[in-house]
C-alpha cells in the first residue's frame, strides 16, 4: 500500500508535467512571495492573499463587504450576557489532500479547537511551529478575552469569554482564524515535520494548493468538494511580479487578469485601455497627523483645533493623493457602518486659527517637530511631501515645524513611545468593526505604555466610556449610536488632523466577471469567472 502511494506520488507529477492547464485559468499578478501558508503568524496582505484561497474560517466576511456570515459554522448562539458563543458546525465539509496526507475524516470540532489552541496555549506542540508570534490573535486581545474553548460534540464548539466583546464574531472572520486540519497536524508532528502544515497547507477552502515556486508562481486548482460549491474558474495562478510597471505591462498583454497596487502614474493609461476596467472603492483606512495630547503645547485642545484649521486638507489631498484619496473628517472611513456624516470638519481658516492660538497663549506661534512617514502607504503616498505642505501652512500662523523622520521600524517604535509632538500615521482596518479604529487607535488602553497604537496618547474619559461601552454591547443599533457620539467628541477634542482615506484602485481585464473589491484589500477569487473561455 505504502509502496504504491509512493509510486503514485512520484508518477503523478510526471504525468502532470507540462500539461497545459484546464480551460478556465485566472492569472493574478501578485506583488510578492508569501512568508508561508499559515496566516496565524503573518501580518502582510501578500501572505494573506496566498493563504485565504486555501482555508475557511468559522465565520466569513461577505464577498466584497464587511458583514459577517456563516462559514464553517452554520449558525451560532450568543448567551444573553454576551460571553458564551456556541457554534454549530457544518457537516460533511471535506479537507484537501496532498502527497503527504490523505484525510480520513471531515472537518469537525477538533479542528476548530486546534485553531484556537495553536495560537493561545503555549504548551500546544504547534504554538512555536513556524513562529511563536501570533500577531493578530494577540492584537485582537484573544489571550485575555478567551476563558475557555470546548468541544461539546463533534459538531458543536462552545467559546466562553471573560467579558462581553461585540467584535468577537468579526474577529473570527479574520485571516488569523483560518482553520487547519488537526488530523494533518498530528500526522506531521508524528513524522517529525510539523512545519509542513504551514508550507504544504491543507484547508477546506475553495482552492487547493498545487505548487508553490518561491518568487515565481503559486498554482491552485478549484476544489470540487468545497462546501459552497466548486469555483467558477478551474485554475488560479499567482504570477509573482514585484514591479508595478511590469505588472501593468503583463496586464496589458493579457499575461495576467488582475493586478494590485498600480503606479499612480499609470492610472490614466489604464483608464484609457479598452481591455481594462479600473475598479475603485474607498478602503477601510485612514491617514492622519496625531498630536501628542500629553505634551505641551498639544495638551491644550485650543492649540489642536487651531492647527486643524491652519492646514489646507483639500490642497494636500489634491496635490499628493491625486485620484487615489478622499479627504477625511472622521477617524473611520465612510464605507464603515456607524460613520457619522453629520460631523462637520474643521474649516480651513488661518485667521481663526491665529486667533485661537493667541487665546491659548501662543500669539506668536511656537516651535514643534513634525514627523513624516518614511514609507509609502495607500493612506499616505508621500509622507515627506505631505509634511512639507503642512509645514508651509503652519508657518503662516507662526508655527515653526521641523520635519523629522526615521527608518520605518524605528519611526513606529518612537511614535508609539510618545517621542513626537506631531506625527503622521495611518491605519488599515482588520475586521471591519468601528471598534478596531475608535478603541484600538484612540482608547485609553492603547495610550498606555510605550507600544500602544494610540500615538496621540489620547485618553479622554467621555470618549473612552462610549467606545468601551460599545465594545461590550451586542446590539448593533445601540453600538452605532455610541460610535456616532464618539465621533462627535473626537472632532471636538481633535487629537488628530484627519487627512485622507485612500481609494483602492484595481485594474482588472474586461474578460474577468464579478471580481469584487474587498474593503480589507484582500484578493479572493471564489465566485469570479472568466468570459469567453
Amino acid at each position, binding site marked *: 500500500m505504502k509502496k504504491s502511494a509512493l509510486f503514485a506520488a512520484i508518477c503523478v507529477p510526471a504525468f502532470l508535467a507540462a500539461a497545459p492547464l484546464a480551460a478556465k485559468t485566472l492569472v493574478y499578478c501578485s506583488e510578492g512571495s508569501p512568508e508561508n501558508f499559515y496566516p496565524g503568524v503573518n501580518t502582510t496582505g501578500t501572505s494573506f492573499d496566498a493563504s485565504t484561497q486555501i482555508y475557511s474560517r468559522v465565520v466569513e466576511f461577505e464577498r466584497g463587504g464587511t458583514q459577517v456570515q456563516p462559514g464553517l459554522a452554520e449558525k451560532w448562539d450568543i448567551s444573553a450576557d454576551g460571553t458564551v458563543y456556541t457554534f454549530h458546525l457544518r457537516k460533511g465539509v471535506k479537507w484537501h489532500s496532498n502527497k503527504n496526507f490523505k484525510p480520513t475524516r471531515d472537518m469537525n470540532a477538533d479542528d476548530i479547537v486546534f485553531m484556537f489552541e495553536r495560537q493561545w496555549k503555549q504548551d500546544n506542540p504547534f504554538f512555536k511551529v513556524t513562529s511563536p508570534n501570533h500577531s493578530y490573535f494577540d492584537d485582537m486581545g484573544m489571550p485575555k478575552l478567551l476563558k475557555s474553548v470546548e468541544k461539546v460534540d463533534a459538531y458543536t464548539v462552545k467559546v466562553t469569554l471573560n467579558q462581553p466583546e461585540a467584535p468577537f464574531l468579526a474577529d473570527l472572520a479574520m485571516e488569523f482564524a483560518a482553520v487547519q486540519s488537526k488530523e494533518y497536524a498530528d500526522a506531521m508532528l508524528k513524522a517529525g515535520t510539523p512545519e509542513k502544515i504551514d508550507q504544504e497547507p491543507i484547508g477546506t477552502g475553495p482552492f487547493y494548493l498545487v505548487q508553490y515556486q518561491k518568487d515565481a508562481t503559486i498554482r491552485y486548482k478549484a476544489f470540487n468538494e468545497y462546501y459552497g460549491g466548486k469555483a467558477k474558474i478551474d485554475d488560479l495562478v499567482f504570477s509573482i511580479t514585484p514591479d508595478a510597471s511590469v505588472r501593468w505591462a503583463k496586464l496589458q*498583454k493579457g499575461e495576467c487578469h488582475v493586478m494590485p497596487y498600480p503606479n499612480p502614474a499609470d492610472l490614466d493609461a489604464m483608464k484609457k485601455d479598452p481591455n481594462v476596467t479600473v475598479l475603485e472603492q474607498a478602503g477601510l483606512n485612514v491617514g492622519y497627523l496625531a498630536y501628542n495630547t500629553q505634551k505641551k503645547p498639544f495638551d491644550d485642545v485650543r492649540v489642536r483645533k487651531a492647527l486643524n484649521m491652519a492646514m489646507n486638507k483639500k490642497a494636500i489631498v489634491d496635490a499628493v493623493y491625486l485620484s487615489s484619496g478622499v479627504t477625511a473628517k472622521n477617524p473611520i472611513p465612510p464605507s464603515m457602518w456607524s460613520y457619522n456624516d453629520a460631523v462637520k470638519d474643521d474649516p480651513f481658516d488661518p485667521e481663526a486659527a491665529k486667533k485661537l492660538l493667541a487665546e491659548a497663549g501662543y500669539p506668536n506661534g511656537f516651535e514643534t517637530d513634525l514627523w513624516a512617514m518614511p514609507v509609502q502607504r495607500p493612506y499616505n503616498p508621500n509622507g515627506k511631501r505631505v509634511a512639507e505642505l503642512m509645514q508651509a501652512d503652519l508657518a503662516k500662523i507662526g508655527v515653526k515645524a521641523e520635519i523629522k523622520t526615521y527608518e520605518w521600524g524605528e519611526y513606529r517604535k518612537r511614535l508609539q513611545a510618545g517621542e513626537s509632538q506631531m506625527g503622521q500615521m495611518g491605519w*488599515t482596518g482588520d475586521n471591519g468593526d468601528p471598534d478596531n479604529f475608535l478603541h484600538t487607535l484612540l482608547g485609553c488602553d492603547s495610550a498606555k505604555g510605550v507600544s500602544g497604537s494610540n500615538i496621540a496618547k489620547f485618553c479622554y474619559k467621555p470618549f473612552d466610556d462610549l467606545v468601551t461601552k460599545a465594545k461590550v454591547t451586542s446590539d448593533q443599533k445601540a453600538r452605532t449610536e455610541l460610535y456616532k457620539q464618539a465621533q462627535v467628541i473626537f472632532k471636538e477634542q481633535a487629537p488628530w488632523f484627519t487627512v485622507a482615506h485612500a481609494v483602492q484602485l484595481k485594474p482588472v481585464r474586461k474578460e474577468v466577471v464579478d471580481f469584487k473589491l474587498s474593503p480589507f484589500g484582500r484578493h479572493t477569487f471564489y465566485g469570479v469567472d472568466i468570459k469567453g473561455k
Partner: protein
Amino acid sequence: MPLRLFSIQDMLRFILTRVSLVIPTFIGITLLAFFLIRLVPGDPIETMAGERGIDVARHEQLKKDFGLDKPLIVQYGYYVERVLHGDLGKSIVTRESVLTEFQSLFPATVELAICAIIFALLLGIPAGIVAAVRRNSIFDHGVMGISLTGYSMPIFWWGLILILVFSVQIGWTPVSGRIDVLYYVEPVTGFLLIDTLFTEDEGAFLSALGHLILPTIVLGTQPLATIARMTRSAMLEVLGEDYIRTAKAKGLSRFRVVGLHALRNALIPVVTVIGLQVGVLFTGAILTETIFSWPGIGKWLIEAIFRRDYPVLQGGLLLVGAIVMSVNLIVDLTYGLINPRIRHNR
C-alpha cells in the same frame, strides 16, 4: 623565447598560494555579511510584526527564542561554529533551511547568468576584434560608442525600456517570468531549458526560451560592453607586436594572423575579465531578477534585506561569495596554465 615546461612543484605552489588567499577572504565575507545587516536599523522580529508593531515584552521573548538577545560577538561565534559544521541555519521568515531555498533558486540565476555570458561573449569578442582590426573606422567608433552606452545604462531602466518596446508595443517577447503560466513543469534539474526538454512538449521549451531573451540581453549588456572594449584594446596591443608583423611578412592569411596569432595572445586579459564578470553578473542579477520576476537568488537576497532575514542573508552571501571566489580561482588557475609567466612570477 624558449618555452619552459612547468614542474608539478611549481603548479602545486601556485595552487596553494591562491587557495591560501581564499581563507582570509572567506572570513572577511562572514564578517561583512554578519555585521553589515545588523547595522541596518530594525530587526527581523519588528519587520515581521509589520504595520502593527509589537509588544515590548513579546519582542524580547522572541529575540531570545531566535538567539538575537546575546552579544553580537557571541552570536557571531555561534554562527561561525554552525557554518563550520555545514549548517547555514533556517530562514526566520519561512522556516525553510537556507541551503534548501538556495538550491531551489540558484539554478534560475545560473541559467540566466550562463545565457548572459554566452550572449556577451558571442557578440563582444567578434565586435572587439573587428573594432581593433578596423581601428578608427566608423564601425570601431560605433562599437565603442554603443559599448560605452551599454556600460553606463542603469539595468532597471534598460529592462523596462526593452519590456515596453519588445513586449508591450511589438509583442515579440513575454513580459516577465521564466515560462508561460500555462505550462506546469516539475523542476528536475531546476534549469528550465533542460526540464522542458524532458516534457516532450515543444511549446514549453520555446516558452522558456522566449522568456530568457530580454533578461539575457539586460544582464548581458554590461559584460558585453566590458568584453568588447577589453578585446579591442588587447587586440590592438598584440597587433602591434613584432611577431604579428613577422606573421604578416610570412604571407599568412589575414584570418590566420588575426584569428590565431593575435587572438590567442589577446585572449589572456579577456579571460581574466570574464572571470571578474561573474561578480558583475551576480550584482546585475539582483536588479534583472526583480524587474523580470525571475525567481533567482538575487531577488531572494533583496527580499531578505527588506525582511531583515539574517540567516538567509548571511548564508546567501556566503554561498554567492564562495561561488564567485571559486570561479575566480579556476580562472586564475587556467590563466596560469595558459600563461607560464604568471605561474613563475614569484
